[in-house]
Each structure stands twice: as structure tokens, then as C-alpha cells.
């Protein structure tokens, strides 16, 4: 249905699409190479949201980012939701589909947050089976995103990179490396973000996310960064991003700004900055 020539995501900056920027995005600004949408916002039967997405897909490569599959959860995947996702992916034909190393579905309902989990061998087995199911239903490879975390689990048996690498190797999924999440988690869990990037299996990375966070502190005054997607990318994260690109080469890079969304020129400046890192790689 769509032009297959636009069906790959280039190693350029992309943006998380917001309806308030529709006019500016449809004008095809030079710094913008592709767009990403949240799958769950486009699962209605019709109306302006779907019409807008169709228009976007006609002029941009589109990446589809799920926020509701609860891939890290202990319970079986919601097959109704998987069917909705398949319906969307079938008509949209996105160049990429990604989801989170997190969970959100609980006995009481859908908790609408990306919740953390202990990194155990049992969790690897469970997540590999969930990802295999997703890739089978969608008929395409998915990317799994590293989380931003505020807590650790005493039950964890391995570090995050070992966990992600084993999942990617066994399921055949790719990885989405959120560099801001690396910085947030490393600060919150007290490890070195540069060492994390240096150990990360960058060969598996099909996309990078950059976003803003806010600073807080816990009850003993230890730094606590909150992944809010509500601010510009901070200088430390730009630096970590440049280090990532220098080490692994250019990758499609998304600017995520989901809350307190600014006027378009502010986002465009972030895109331009990412473009400079990518073109000088």
C-alpha cells in the first residue's frame, strides 16, 4: 500500500510524533529523517489520528514503538493486544517495531508505566519466549529497549548487559539503545555509563533514543534521575551519545519529548544537534 522506497529508517535524526507539530513535520524540515509513533495511540477504528498517521507514512519512514505489551511481565502476553498490534503493523508496514524491557500488566489491570524487573535466568527464558511470540505474530524482527530504572532487585542474578545480550542472541531480536536511559540508570544505580556503553553489544543496536530527564534525590541524598522526556537532552547525555556513535557508528537516532512538549523549533534544534554528531561520525 505504501511506497517501499521509504521503508527503511536512515541513520539520521527522527522525532517522536506529536499531533501539535503536524504542520511543521509535514513540511519536511531538513533535519528530520523519520518519525516514530506510539503504537497504542493508533489502535482506534478511524478518525483524525489514523488519517494523520497515513499522511505521515506517505512521506516518512515510520518506526512503531509499543508501550503496552508488557514483555518483561510474568504473565502470558495479552493476545488481544498482540492482535491489535498485528493489525496496525500490517497496514502501516513500519520500518521498525520496538518495545521495552519492562512490564505493565498486572492482576489489577494495566499500570501504564514501564516497570522494572529482576535480571534472572528465569526472566531471560520468559522474555525470550515472549519476544519469539511477538516476532512470529508480527512476522518481523523487533528491537528491545534498555530501561531507565530507579531501583535494583536483590533477586537479580546478572547485570543488565549480560541479560540483554542473552535475550538478543537467543530470540534474534535487535536492541534499541536509549542513551538517556543508560545515563539515568547508571546514575541511579551508581555505575559508570561510559563503561556500560563500552560493554554494550552495539552490533545488535538498530536504533538509539535520546531524551531529557529531571534531577531528584532519594531519602539519603543519593542522586535520583527521573526519565520524564520533558526537557532537552543534557550535555552529559550528548557526550555519551557522541561516544556511542564514535564506537558503534551512526544509527537512526530519535529525539523523545513526550511531556511539556515544546514548540517545534526547540525540537528541531535537538534534531540538528543529533545530525551534527551523526554526520561527523
Amino acid at each position, binding site marked *: 500500500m505504501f511506497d517501499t522506497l521509504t521503508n527503511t529508517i536512515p541513520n539520521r535524526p527522527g522525532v517522536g510524533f506529536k499531533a501539535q507539530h503536524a504542520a511543521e513535520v509535514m513540511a519536511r524540515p531538513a533535519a528530520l529523517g523519520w518519525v516514530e509513533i506510539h503504537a*497504542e495511540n493508533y489502535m482506534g477504528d478511524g*478518525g483524525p489520528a489514523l488519517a494523520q498517521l497515513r499522511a505521515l507514512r506517505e512521506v516518512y519512514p515510520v518506526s512503531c514503538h509499543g508501550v503496552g505489551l508488557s514483555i518483561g511481565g510474568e504473565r502470558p502476553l495479552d493476545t488481544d493486544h498482540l492482535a491489535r498490534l498485528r493489525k496496525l503493523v500490517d497496514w502501516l508496514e513500519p520500518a521498525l517495531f520496538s518495545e521495552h524491557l519492562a512490564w505493565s500488566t498486572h492482576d*489489577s489491570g494495566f499500570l501504564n*508505566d514501564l516497570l522494572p524487573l529482576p535480571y534472572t535466568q528465569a526472566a531471560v527464558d520468559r522474555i525470550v519466549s515472549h519476544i519469539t511470540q511477538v516476532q512470529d505474530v508480527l512476522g518481523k524482527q523487533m528491537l528491545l529497549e534498555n530501561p531507565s530504572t530507579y531501583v535494583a532487585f536483590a533477586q537479580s542474578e546478572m547485570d543488565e548487559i549480560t541479560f540483554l545480550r542473552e535475550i538478543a542472541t537467543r530470540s534474534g531480536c535487535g536492541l534499541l539503545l536509549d542513551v538517556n536511559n543508560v545515563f539515568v540508570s547508571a546514575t541511579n544505580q551508581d555505575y559508570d555509563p561510559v563503561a556500560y556503553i563500552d560493554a554494550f553489544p552495539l552490533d545488535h543496536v538498530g536504533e538509539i533514543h535520546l531524551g531529557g530527564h529531571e534531577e531528584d534525590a532519594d531519602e539519603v541524598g543519593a542522586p535520583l534521575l527521573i526519565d520524564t522526556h520533558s526537557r532537552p537532552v543534557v550535555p552529559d547525555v550528548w557526550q555519551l551519545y557522541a561516544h556511542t556513535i564514535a564506537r558503534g557508528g551512526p544509527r537512526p537516532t530519535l529525539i523523545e519529548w513526550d511531556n511539556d512538549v515544546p514548540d517545534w523549533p526547540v525540537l528541531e534544534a535537538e534534531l540538528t544537534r543529533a545530525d551534527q554528531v551523526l554526520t561527523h561520525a
Partner: protein
Amino acid sequence: MLEGFGAALLDPDAKVPDGVIRPDGHPAWRRFTVYRNNVVSSLIDALETGFPTVAKLVGTEFFAAMAGVFVRAHPPSNPLMFKYGAAFPDWIAGFRPASSLPYLPDVARLDLARREAFHAADAAPAAPTLLAEIAPEALDTARLRLLPSLRVVTSSFPILTIWRINHEGADLPLTQTAQSVLILRPEMTVTMWPLPTGADTFLMALSDGAPLAEAAEAAAMVHRDFDLSTTMQTLIPARAFAGVIDA
């Protein structure tokens, strides 16, 4: 393990789940609270987006307090946030702190109907000459198909006037009149129309598949002053019909 974590998120009195720790190995109370706040505030935000007129009428602070009680008791059943809150209007009707605003549940129903119309399936409205194209002898038994986005909210309060005052800054007199409102999306914009007496019953009969004459009779049974021609004079310009269902 994760079930306990999830239950503690919705219970403000629950302790930090076992094994959830800070980098120094101690229980991560403040850090766990970040997740707890994110879950509740993101759901409250979803309701505030979905019920903008309710939020405007009661103010942000009251809305957050009211929605906070609802989201802990009724978290969404699936990840589609644009569908969340279908049970909110009925729940508001039983929420005592809001009882001084008796029209609030119906205003919530109007907000919900607008949201449903926005996301409903697309369908081209029939031409305004729809009825003229039906042979006169077939008119009584003709079955009309309504637009998939069509909703009706009937209230003992002037909910359409309340909506227009709040969103369009309309300078309208607020009288104690009941209003029945037609909500639909003929193209990409949701529109609303005040309905004449009995039109709600008439539309409900049509959506159940009743032929024109039968639906008009049903409306006249319930509302003595139902008038088919007045009703059609609203429904046709509103573009409520998608076409005629073949017999």
C-alpha cells in the same frame, strides 16, 4: 514477585516489596515511590485528557483527587489509554464529594461520547437527499444506517450549553433545561447538535435496526410531542445517516 510489586503500586499504605533496593542495598522506599507516583499520575493525566470538561468544571486539584480515587479502584483493563475511563461517568455519580454538581456525570458522558466519536470508524455521510431517493411507498419500511461515530447523551441538565460555555467561551444563558445532544463525526471534526424531544428514542430504535415508521412510533410512544419532521430537520443537516440498509 512482580504481582506483589504491582499491588504495592496501587496501595499507598503498602511497604516496599522485598528485594527492591537502593545501590547501598537498603530498601528503596523513595525510589519505589517514583513508580507509585508515575502509575497514578499517568492514569489521572489520561482521565484529564479524556474528560476535559469535567476537569474544567471542578478544577485541576479537585479533578486529580477525584480521579486518584477512581484510578486506584479501577485501573485500565488494557493499554489503550484513549479508551480509559468508560466507567468514570457512572462512578462520578456515586462520588459524594462531587454531589453538589449533579450535572457532572452527564457532562462526563458527553466528554466520553466525544472521545468515542473521535476514534470511531470513518464512514461517508449520505447525501442530504437520502430520503428523497427512496420510493414514497418504501419510506415506512426503509432502514437507515447511522454513522459509526454517532452517539446521543440525554440529560436533565443543559449539558451542551455547559460544554459551549467552557470550551468556546460562549456567552449563553444557563437555564435549567434538559438537553439531549447528538454527537457525531461526519468527517474529521466532532460536531454536536441539540436534539428535539424523542429524537434520542428514535435514533436508538434506528440503531437497533427498526424501519423508519416503527422507530417513529417507538419515539412517539415514549414522548407524546415527538415529531418526525422536526427530528429529520436536525438529523439531515447534521449528516447523521450513512445510507439506507438494503432490505
